[in-house]
């Protein structure tokens, strides 16, 4: 959303802060705590919803925090640990406040009940998370009955509002949230007819295929998609077809499933309208900002971490990333960060990397995803002919984020780097 001059005149509250954090989910909270502990105490978190915690508020299943805390926590428990840390430090936060514009010189405008808020900051952290791809993004033909919703919305209905989305369920897409909802719906007495995935491999984690589908006998149909949606007021049936290698539906393979609910779990997209508005460049592979090893975007003083930067499957890594970013913010506030001019390019079977460029003055953890599954994969980073980092991964899957350590002493100069998977 842009903001006209008229709106600017209505600004009725101006505040100052060293750092404004946009979004009070795990990324924003972890960044706030780390900044505070590094002496940057003049912080302000702005959160659109009425509570801190982000998407974790609705993720009541466990499996969070294994890396971070060594125990398996539910989403609300994990979030609560960070919320308590924020509260103990008396870090300022304002809820029910939606940031609507960020300028390249760190002016942040937000809408809240009492009007418009204008905050002048020295640095801004983007921690807005991601949103789900919807039916519109897929263009499935058919009618528009009630009963078609995304997995995250279904999760919010069930876990926050005590509303059951339906009784006979078809799930399109094998993303983790869809898998988790397949189990949740089954536990609550619904009948999940199947999960249909257009690609030949599942997009969710193997452990969720096991503990959410196989444990409950819910079938997974790979290379299948929904080709028609039928029903007038309420969804009555969906048509499912097999697809060929080009993901095109195969005529003659249609099967009709009578159901009252279709749940979409077809991907998450980083939420970057504000990022673009601030003038930061986006990376086409991640859908998030183009960043250096301090998670600084192409706009100086504008940083990003968490799902807004690239979609994570594990919140533990979101927290870690936000903390690393916070260290960069501290350095930025104490003087400019070194120029990052060494680009990381995606070579064979690499979907994306974060960061996309580095300075070469620091040891860096590069995060990446492979494009296609590969057993016994050797991931290598090359600079010209020299191999500067390598890592073996027994079973590299697009669903698993992979980390590889790049040591500055291994670098041979200022040439660009290529990341690829060896056969």
């Amino acid at each position, binding site marked *: 959303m842009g903001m006209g001059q008229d709106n600017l005149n209505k600004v009725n509250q101006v505040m100052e802060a060293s750092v404004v954090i946009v979004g009070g989910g795990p990324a924003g909270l972890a960044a706030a705590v780390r900044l505070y502990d590094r002496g940057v105490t003049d912080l302000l978190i702005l959160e659109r919803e009425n509570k801190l915690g982000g998407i974790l508020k609705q993720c*009541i*299943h*466990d499996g969070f925090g294994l890396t971070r805390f060594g125990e398996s926590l539910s989403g*609300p428990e994990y979030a609560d640990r960070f919320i308590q840390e924020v509260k103990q430090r008396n870090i300022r936060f304002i809820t029910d406040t939606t940031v609507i514009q960020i300028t390249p010189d760190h002016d942040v405008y937000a809408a809240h009940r009492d009007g418009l808020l204008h905050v002048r900051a020295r640095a801004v952290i983007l921690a807005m998370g991601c949103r789900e791809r919807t039916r519109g993004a897929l263009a499935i033909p058919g009618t528009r009955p009630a009963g078609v919703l995304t997995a995250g919305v279904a999760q919010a209905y069930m876990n926050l509002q005590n509303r059951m989305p339906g009784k006979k369920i078809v799930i399109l897409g094998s993303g983790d949230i869809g898998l988790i909802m397949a189990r949740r719906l089954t536990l609550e007495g619904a009948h999940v007819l199947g999960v249909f995935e257009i690609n030949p491999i599942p997009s969710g*984690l193997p452990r969720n295929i096991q503990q959410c589908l196989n*444990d409950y006998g819910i079938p997974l149909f790979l290379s299948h998609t929904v080709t028609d949606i039928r029903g007038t007021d309420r969804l009555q049936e969906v048509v499912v077809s097999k697809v060929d290698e080009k993901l095109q539906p195969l005529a003659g393979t249609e099967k009709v499933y009578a159901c009252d609910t279709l749940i979409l779990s077809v991907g998450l997209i980083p939420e970057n309208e504000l990022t673009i508005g601030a003038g930061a460049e986006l990376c086409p592979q991640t859908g998030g900002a183009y960043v250096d090893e301090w998670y600084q975007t192409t706009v100086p003083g504008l940083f990003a971490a968490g799902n807004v930067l690239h979609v994570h499957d594990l919140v533990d890594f979101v927290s870690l990333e936000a903390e690393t970013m916070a260290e960069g913010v501290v350095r930025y506030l104490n003087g400019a960060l070194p120029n990052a001019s060494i680009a990381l390019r995606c070579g064979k079977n690499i979907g994306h990397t974060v960061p996309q460029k580095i300075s070469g003055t620091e040891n860096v953890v590069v995060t990446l995803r492979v494009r296609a599954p590969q057993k016994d994969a050797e991931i290598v980073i090359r600079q010209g002919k020299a191999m500067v980092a390598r890592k073996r991964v027994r079973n590299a899957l697009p669903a698993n984020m992979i980390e590889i350590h790049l040591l500055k002493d291994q670098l041979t100069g200022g040439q660009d780097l290529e990341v690829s998977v060896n056969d």
Partner: protein
Amino acid sequence: MIKEMTCVVCPNGCLLQVEYEKQGDQVAIQRITGNLCKRGLEYARQEMVSPRRTIASSILVEGGSMPLVSVRTSGPIPKAMIFPVMAEIRKCSVKAPVQAGTVLIPNVLDLGVDIIATRTVE
């Protein structure tokens, strides 16, 4: 014989191969491979004898700021007990306020595991 299984203990989701012999009703495990850490061994052994899982759900709250409080089992329960435990969870309702960590159903169905709140509802 060899059985393949995905370890669900952590997000790595290692694909484990369990070599075993059937001796009457018993299984004798000879070798477990594919695990990145030793928790995978324990998981595979348990899975061959009696699979266990932790489950999460929610319980109705009367007079709270939210209609539900999320809950989970304090430890894994036998897979066969998942639906009976869900039935117990569904029968239960509590009055606000509920503190995260509170035991809402102690020793559910005598399984030695509690149902605990995972969120505070005021």
